[in-house]
């Protein structure tokens, strides 16, 4: 699969939990400024895969990564993991705003937690920009100094997206970001994702096929740790090359 402009390119990526190989020899290119869905049945390694992309995987005791992962032209496995995580943001399955911080502070967490001091003007600007990008500004602009935990589930998740966007990452990884939300909130976030891809590339793990169909441009299909299919979503969904992909799409196993 030839990708014109790839933001990520993995070469023979393998990930282990102790002796168990969760990701087996994955070589793939993730296109820039597109939404790439990562799908597959439970336990296929899709979450493990994206956690390799921001080097969160290696924080699990006993975890290991081999192979190469290029972010643009640099192998992130040779870089300082902390710098990698500044460039590759992540949004989790359950919204997780920091409970001791206000909405304002949550958005700026990527700076505050590192002790980076910002002038008030600069901070205000970053907060407004991030919240606008996350389509949350209008709803919270008057309550910026309340705790983040008072928001609804959908709002909290958009707050987490704003928080991730505030440090200007090049890629945003999303691990089933709407699975804990109601349909209305889900729709809001899906629209947001389609908007966001113009500025950040998006890799989204989802087990929701209609969702992938709605918002993703490319789909990577995993099965038991292997990447068995990758291509434009329209093609993969209507004309899958691998029989296992077809079985999953038609609901034979999930």
């Amino acid at each position, binding site marked *: 699969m030839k990708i014109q402009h790839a933001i990520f390119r993995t070469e023979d990526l393998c990930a282990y939990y102790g002796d168990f190989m969760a990701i087996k020899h994955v070589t793939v290119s993730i296109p820039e400024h597109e939404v790439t869905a990562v799908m597959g049945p439970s336990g296929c390694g899709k979450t493990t895969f994206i956690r390799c992309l921001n080097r969160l995987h290696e924080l699990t005791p006993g975890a290991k990564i081999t192979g190469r992962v290029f972010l643009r032209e640099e192998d992130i496995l040779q870089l300082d993991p902390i710098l990698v995580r500044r460039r590759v943001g992540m949004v989790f399955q359950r919204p997780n705003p920091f409970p001791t911080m206000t909405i304002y502070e949550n958005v700026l967490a990527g700076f505050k937690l590192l002790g980076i001091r910002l002038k008030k003007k600069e901070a205000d600007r970053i907060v407004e920009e991030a919240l606008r990008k996350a389509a949350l500004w209008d709803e919270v602009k008057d309550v910026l100094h309340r705790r983040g935990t008072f928001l609804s589930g959908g709002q909290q998740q958009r707050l987490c997206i704003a928080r*991730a966007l505030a440090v200007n990452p090049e890629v945003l990884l999303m691990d089933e970001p709407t699975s804990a939300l109601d349909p209305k909130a889900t729709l809001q976030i899906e629209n947001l994702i389609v908007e966001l891809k113009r500025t950040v590339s998006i890799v989204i793990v989802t087990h929701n096929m209609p969702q992938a169909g709605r918002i993703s441009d490319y789909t990577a299909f995993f099965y038991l740790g292997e990447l068995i299919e990758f291509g434009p979503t329209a093609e993969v969904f209507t004309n899958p090359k691998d029989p296992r992909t077809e079985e999953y799409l038609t609901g034979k196993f999930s």
Partner: protein
Amino acid sequence: MNTYANEARRRMKNKVILSIITVLALLPAVPLFLILFQLFKEGLSSLSLDFFLHLPAPPGEPGGGIANAIVGTFIIVGLAVLIGVPLSIMAGIYLSEYGRDCKLAEVIRVSADVLQGVPSIVIGIVAYAWIVKPLGHFSALSGSVALALMMIPVVVRTTEEVLRLVPNILREASLALGVPYWRTVLKVVLPTGLVGVTTGILIAIARIAGETAPLLFTAFGNQFMALNPMEPMNALPLVIFNYATSPYADWWRQAWGASLVLIIMVLSLNIVSRILARRIAGEK
């Protein structure tokens, strides 16, 4: 066999035994109320502005107060907190963040348990050997060290428990932003668990504030006002002990007064920590 008679006998037995149990259960409340009642009765008469502001009178002379004991208790306990709390929190952080599954952590937990079980008088002996002997004199510092030794196991255990309860997903959110682990612990995990950790500290303070045995041959007591931790210092529990075992009736009266002050301090700390604990439970 007459089953009805049997039934009746069983039911009677049930009633009788349950009544006995209820009586036995409620009986201990009697001495408790007696203690509190007598404490208030005897102690209240001692409380006066003079009592709080003056230093002790020479033995045998009536009057005088416990000003130096109140100040002393604050200084000795305060110093113990300064010595013991940072250490305990760091150890609690180790057990929760790095030591979930390793042998070293188990040994540390067992050690903390053992330390907690050491009788307070033995802790006093150890503090005597570590500080009083080398310095050649009694001091508030040695008393604080003894009390710190007693605080440490409690604060370590509550800190570990509280930090373990912080959801892992918060740690991951911070790490995913590119925050190093140590900052994640100090600026996300610890603040999230702050109320619980504080509760643990308050409970520990309530315990050590009333301890006498560790101070008997460390802080030792002082007739005068002492503010320097290197001097021997008076404290409320020492006053109670010394006055109660003295032959002077006026000092007995003052012992009750000091007891009332001490109990109010300890009870307030306990009540505050219980309210905090309920708030945490409520937030869940």
